[in-house]
C-alpha cells in the first residue's frame, strides 16, 4: 500500500532482498527492526514477520478459529418464501448462527420465524448434493458451506415429516 507524500515508504511490506539502502551494514537483523519496516496489516499493534512464529501453514489455516481473518469469502444464497412475489439474496457469512439468520430473514420477509409455536413456516435449504434439508441440524459453519439456497416453506406444505417433528427442530435450533 502506498501512502504517498507521507513518508511511509520505510514501513512498506517487503519480502525481497534488503536493497535500497534501508538496512545498511547490519550485523544482525533484529526482530524489532524487521517489524518496523513491515506494515502492520492487522491493526492490532503487533507486527508480523514472514514465517514467525514457526507454525506450519496447515495449522495456521485450521486451528486459529476466525481470528486470522481468512473468512473473507461471501456466501450469498437465494432465499425464497412461499407466497412472496420476489426472491431475495442473503450473505450467510455475515451471520453468526441460526438465530441471527432467523432475525435477518424476519427483516427481509416480515415473518416471525423465531417463535416456532405460532410459526407457520419452516426453513429448509438445498445442499451441495441437491437434497432439501431442514435448517438447523448441522453446525453453523458446515451449514453455510453446504447451503446453496434457502426456502421458507409453509408448514401446511410439510408432508410426511412425521418422526422429525419439525416444530421441535425449528424451535430448538433457531432459538439457540
Amino acid at each position, binding site marked *: 500500500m502506498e501512502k504517498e507524500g507521507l513518508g511511509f515508504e520505510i514501513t512498506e511490506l517487503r519480502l525481497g532482498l534488503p536493497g535500497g539502502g534501508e538496512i545498511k551494514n547490519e550485523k544482525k*537483523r533484529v*526482530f524489532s527492526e*524487521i517489524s518496523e519496516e513491515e506494515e502492520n496489516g492487522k491493526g492490532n499493534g503487533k507486527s508480523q514477520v514472514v*514465517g*514467525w512464529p*514457526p*507454525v506450519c501453514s*496447515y495449522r495456521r489455516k485450521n486451528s486459529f478459529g476466525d481470528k486470522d481473518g481468512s473468512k473473507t469469502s461471501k456466501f450469498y444464497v437465494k432465499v425464497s418464501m412461499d407466497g412472496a412475489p420476489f426472491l431475495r439474496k442473503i450473505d450467510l457469512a455475515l451471520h453468526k448462527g441460526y438465530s441471527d439468520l432467523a432475525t435477518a430473514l424476519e427483516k427481509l420477509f416480515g415473518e416471525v420465524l423465531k417463535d416456532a409455536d405460532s410459526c407457520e413456516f419452516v426453513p429448509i435449504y438445498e445442499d451441495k448434493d441437491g437434497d432439501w434439508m431442514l435448517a438447523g441440524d*448441522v*453446525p453453523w459453519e458446515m451449514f453455510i458451506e453446504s447451503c446453496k439456497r434457502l426456502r421458507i416453506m409453509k408448514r401446511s406444505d410439510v408432508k410426511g415429516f412425521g418422526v422429525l417433528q419439525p416444530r421441535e427442530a425449528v424451535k430448538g435450533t433457531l432459538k439457540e
Partner: protein
Amino acid sequence: MMNYFPDEVLEHVFDFITCHKDRNSVSLVCKSWHRIERYSRRRVFIGNCYSISPERLIARFPGVKSLTLKGKPHFADFNLVPYDWGGFVYPWIKVLAETGIGLEELRLKRMVVSDESLELISKTFVNFQSLVLVSCDGFSADGLAAIAANCRFLRELDLQENEVDDHRGHWLSCFPESCTSLVSLNFACLKGEVNLGALERLVSRSPNLKSLRLNRSVPLDTLQKLLMRAPQLVDLGIGSYVHDPSSEASNKLKHAIQRCKSIMSLSGFLEVAPRCMSAIYPICGNLTTLNLSYAPGIHGNKLTKLIQHCRKLQRLWILDCIGDKGLGVVASTCKELQELRVFPSDPFGAGNDAVTEEGLVLVSAGCPKLNSLLYFCQQMTNAALITVAKNCPNFIRFRLCILDPVRPDPVTNQPLDEGFGAIVQSCKRLKRLSLSGLLTDQVFLYIGMYAEQLEMLSIAFAADSDKGMLYVLNGCKKLRKLEIRDCPFGNAALLEDVGKYETMRSLWMSSCEVTLGGCKTVAEMMPSLNVEIINESDQTEFNLDDGQKVDKMYLYRTLVGHRKDAPESVWIL
C-alpha cells in the same frame, strides 16, 4: 566366522534388523554382508529426495517394498520456500513402475504429489497397501479416488496436514465392496463432505480397522454409528462433536463410546461443543495419546476436567489456552507423560491465556519421564530453564518458541544463554534443539561443547557474530540438519570447514550475511553438494555481484549432482 554361514542364514539374521541406520551399518562390514543386505532390504528411508535418484535406489535395493521420501526443506512449513521449489514424487513413481518394483508402502513428507502420481501408483503396484502423506500438496480428491478404487489390498490411507484444495468427497465412495482390508483411514485434513452411508458401509466391512480419523464434515450421529460398527478401534479422530448433552443422540453416543474399550489415542474435535465432553470420560482412563491442538473450542475448566481423567497419558498436544494453571493439572495428573506440545492459539494477538515459563516448570517437576517438548510461550527465564534441565535430564527433543523471538529473560533482562546451556549440559541424549529468545554467541559455545548427540538445530534471530555458527559446526559431531534464519553469520563461518557439510544432510541459511561469492566458493570446493540460491524478490534481474547478500541458501549433499526440475526462482550454483 560369519563368512562360513550360507547367505540364507545371514539373510535370516538380517531380517531381525529393521532400523535403517543399523542396516546401513551392517552393509559396511564387508563385501558379502553388503551384498546380502542389499538384496534383503525391504524398507528404504531417503531423507532428501534429491540426494539420490530412483534409478540408483533400485540398482542397490532391487527388493525394496517400502519407501519413505522427504522433499522440501523444513522451513517450507513456514512459507519460506517458494511453492514450486520442487520435491515432485512423480519421477520416482514412474521409474519404480517401469522397473517392475513391487512397491507396497509409500511414505511422503513435504512432497508435491500429483493426481497423476496417485493414479499411476494405484494402477501399477498390485500389492500396494499403505499410503502416508504428511504436509504434502499437489493432489485432489480425484487422486484419492484412484487409490480407493484400484488398490485392492489397501490397508492404510493416512493423510496428515496436507493442503488439498478440493472440496469434493466422492473419493470415499470409490472404495469397492470387495475392499475389506483397511486398518487405518485418516482423512481429517480434507474439507469435503464424504457420503456418510458409504463411510458407514466401509467401516462395517473393515473388521481390521484400528485407526479412524474423520474430518469436520462427519456429524455426530454418523460418529455414533461408526463407533457401534467398529468397537475395536485403537485410534479415533473425531470430526464434528456438537450435540446437546441431554438429547437422545448424546445418550446413544455415550453408549457407543463405552463399547470402545481399546481406544488409546484420541484427536480431532475439529468442531466442538465443550459442554459435551463428559461423554468422552469413560475412555479417558486408557488414553496414551491425546491431541486437542485443533480444538480451540475446548478450554478452561472443560479442558482441565478432561485431562484429569487421563492418567495414563504419554503424549499430549494442546493449545496454549490451557494456561499455566492447566499445565499444573497436567503435571499432577499425567505422570507417564513423555511428549508435550503446546501450540499457540493466536500467534499474533496479545495471547492472554498463553503459557509462560511457569507452566513448563510445573510439568517438568510433575512429569519426570518427559523427553520431547514443543513449547510456544510468551516468555522464558534462565532460572526456569535451569530448573527444567535438572528435573528432566532425558530430553531427546527440546523445541522452545518464544512468540517474541528476541525476548530476554523478563526477570533479569539477560539473554537466555545460560538457560539453554543448562539444557544441553544436562540432557546428554539431546538430538533435536530449537532456540528462541535473546541469545548471544555464548549459547552456541555451550551447544558446541555439550550437545554431543545433537542431530538437528534450528536457530532464529540469534548470535552476535560468525563465532556462534563456528562453535556449532566444530563441536556437534553428529549434526545432520542445521537451519538458520536472521542471524549475523557470514562467509567466514560458512567457509571455515566446507567438508563438514558432506557429513550432514542439509544446511539452510536465510536472511544471514553470506554472499553470493561465499556460496559460489562452497559450490566450487564441494562438487558433492548442491548449493541452491532461492530468490523470490520482484527484481527481474538477479544481481550477479558476488558481494550481494544472499536471501536464502539451501545446500545439501547429493550423489546425483544438480537437479533438473528447479524453478526460475532457484539457482543451483
